[in-house]
């Protein structure tokens, strides 16, 4: 018997890729702005020094001192780079310019749950419904009425999510007034586990979630359909039919089970762009997640906040990819990730 699951070698390799992703992204963030425009942090600090008092609630002296120390602004570039990496991996992002003396971590900590919850739910719904639509589109057993309706669900596939968001916002919020135009809950309700709060959260979340689902569902539907069609021609499908199995069993155990594997792979590959879409949707719906925070950072020229959020987003994505990679062998027995040693 061969062990099913993860070999140390595989886990190490995935962890290596994980680390590489983070390092690459961090370096990009550090290097390219400095190649193009000098040192943005120094520029920002310099700007605050000039407008001392106005930008940072009168505490700019303390802020400047804290930053000079933290970024080693007087040290050579390589030291600054190493310091940047060290601060990044220890999540030591320092203070926010917008809300000094609040730290960047505090700001992100308040925003992240909203983002993660919205993204997780919307992506899950879109992945499941989209895959189901794709599977039904390809399956010969689908009732013809359903089959003729299904393609309409793909109408919005070709548009980026924020465009769909604009449309939904205009129709359902501004014109019909069914849903609120901004925020994650009514400011009047008290946050907590009570019905007014929860219903308010759901009420506010519907449109952003619908936007993400509507715009990405078609992607999953099409790739699922493609996989299903490919599987239709496999030899094991013919044998399955010859075995006289019920169509439902052929559908689940043969078609869906095999088609789901590449779907999970592409989920891992597209997480990055899912995050990108999320940022815009939050901006559009003024949803208090990190996307919105990011936009605030841009408006306030709070470079450190922007950089920190982006770094965290990258870590989150890489982490999610890592998790998907590690559970993949449990879904696909062919990938035991142990070297194929002849017994």
């Amino acid at each position, binding site marked *: *018997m*061969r062990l099913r699951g993860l070999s140390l070698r595989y886990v190490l390799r995935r962890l290596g890729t994980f680390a590489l992703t983070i390092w690459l992204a961090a370096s990009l963030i550090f290097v390219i702005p400095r190649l193009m425009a000098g040192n943005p942090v120094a520029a920002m600090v310099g700007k605050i020094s000039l407008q001392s008092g106005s930008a940072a609630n009168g505490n700019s002296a303390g802020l400047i001192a804290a930053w000079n120390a933290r970024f080693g602004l007087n040290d050579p570039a390589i030291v600054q780079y190493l310091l940047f990496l060290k601060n990044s991996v220890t999540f030591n992002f320092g203070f926010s310019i917008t809300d000094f003396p609040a730290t960047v971590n505090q700001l992100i900590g308040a925003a992240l749950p909203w983002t993660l919850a919205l993204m997780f739910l919307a992506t899950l719904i879109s992945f499941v419904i989209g895959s189901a639509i794709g599977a039904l589109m390809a399956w010969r057993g689908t009732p013809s009425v359903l089959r003729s309706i299904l393609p309409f669900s793909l109408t919005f596939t070709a548009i980026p999510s924020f465009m769909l968001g604009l449309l939904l916002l205009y129709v359902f919020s501004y014109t019909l007034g069914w849903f609120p135009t901004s925020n994650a809950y009514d400011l009047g309700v008290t946050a907590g586990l009570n019905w007014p709060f929860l219903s308010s959260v759901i009420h506010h979340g519907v449109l952003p979630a619908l936007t993400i689902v509507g715009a990405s569902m078609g992607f999953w539907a099409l790739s699922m359909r493609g996989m299903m069609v490919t599987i239709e021609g*496999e*030899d*094991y499908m*013919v*044998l*399955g*039919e*010859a*075995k*006289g*199995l*019920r169509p439902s*069993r052929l559908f689940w*155990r*043969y078609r869906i*089970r*095999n088609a789901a*594997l590449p779907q999970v792979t592409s989920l891992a590959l597209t997480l990055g762009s899912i995050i990108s879409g999320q940022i815009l949707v939050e901006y559009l719906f003024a949803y208090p997640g990190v996307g919105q925070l990011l936009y605030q950072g841009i408006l306030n020229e709070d470079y450190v906040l922007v950089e920190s959020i982006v770094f965290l987003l990258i870590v989150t994505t890489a982490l999610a990819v890592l998790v998907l990679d590690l559970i993949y062998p449990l*879904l*696909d*027995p*062919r990938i035991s990730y142990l070297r194929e040693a002849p017994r």
Partner: protein
Amino acid sequence: MKPAVLEVEALQVHYQTATEVAVAVNGVSFQVFAGETLGLVGESGCGKSTTAMAILNLVQAPGRIAGGSIRLNGQDLTTLSQRRLRQVRWREVALIPQGAMDSLNPVVRVDDQVAEVIQAHEGRLSRSAMSDRIAELLSLVGLPGRVARLYPHELSGGMKQRVCIAMAIALQPALLVADEPTSALDVVVQRVVGQTLLDVTSRLGVAMILIGHDIALQAQLVDRMAVMYAGSILEIGPVETMFDQPQHPYTQLLIASIPSITERRRRPAETPVREVQHRPSGCVFRLRCPHAFDRCREEVPVARETSPGHVVACHLHDDASQPAGGGSRA
């Protein structure tokens, strides 16, 4: 004579393409008797695999059964409802597929793949009864019980093919359709699998259609043999007389082209075999036939019985005897 398990009558299978209809099987008729092994031999594209799929009513689109009947134990499979067809499949006729490599569901363990077919036709069994039965089936084909818990990719080609055989006999069907079951295997494994097939069919009294391109292997394994060319059966008969006195020029060519391992000979310096692109009028083989004459171009030869149970469709044998009963019935 034993009763016929399967009677195929004037079977037509067509492939509809955008511009034309391709005839893959053109009026094939034959019978398989209880407990016997019938070989169906021919070269690539002759329609033998399509015939096999038609017997299970499993011709894949855009192909379709365009005519004829397939009677299995008296009921015509071409007219059955999907529901009834599902019940007949595997219970009465099981398939041993051509590409055992890819014919097992890659994400399901061997025992679950065997169990699902038992469950689909006999309902639920207790866990232990099921695993006993699977172990017994595996041992019938010479596999150890631990194979049950493996995934297909963990098996070698020969093992996979034997799993397919174990699965095929799980319900003791009346007929096995083995579609080139050994063509991807090495000679020694081919022999083992071939002998396993004969062993289980004789032990369970199952009839089998063995489809293949290797006429020497057919000589080793089958009771009767049918030679197919361009969608038609040209000759059918007991395997001994087919080899002793092949009647059809194509059968003669096939037998003559087997390279011998015991007798070294210079190749007959004949002209290169002609390769024919299109179905000619009259006899399908006439353009490659060394004996072709005028009548071959004009008339499709009728199958005639040259000796008991040995039927050939060739104008050379037109005066040999009476046409075999029922058109090209063989």
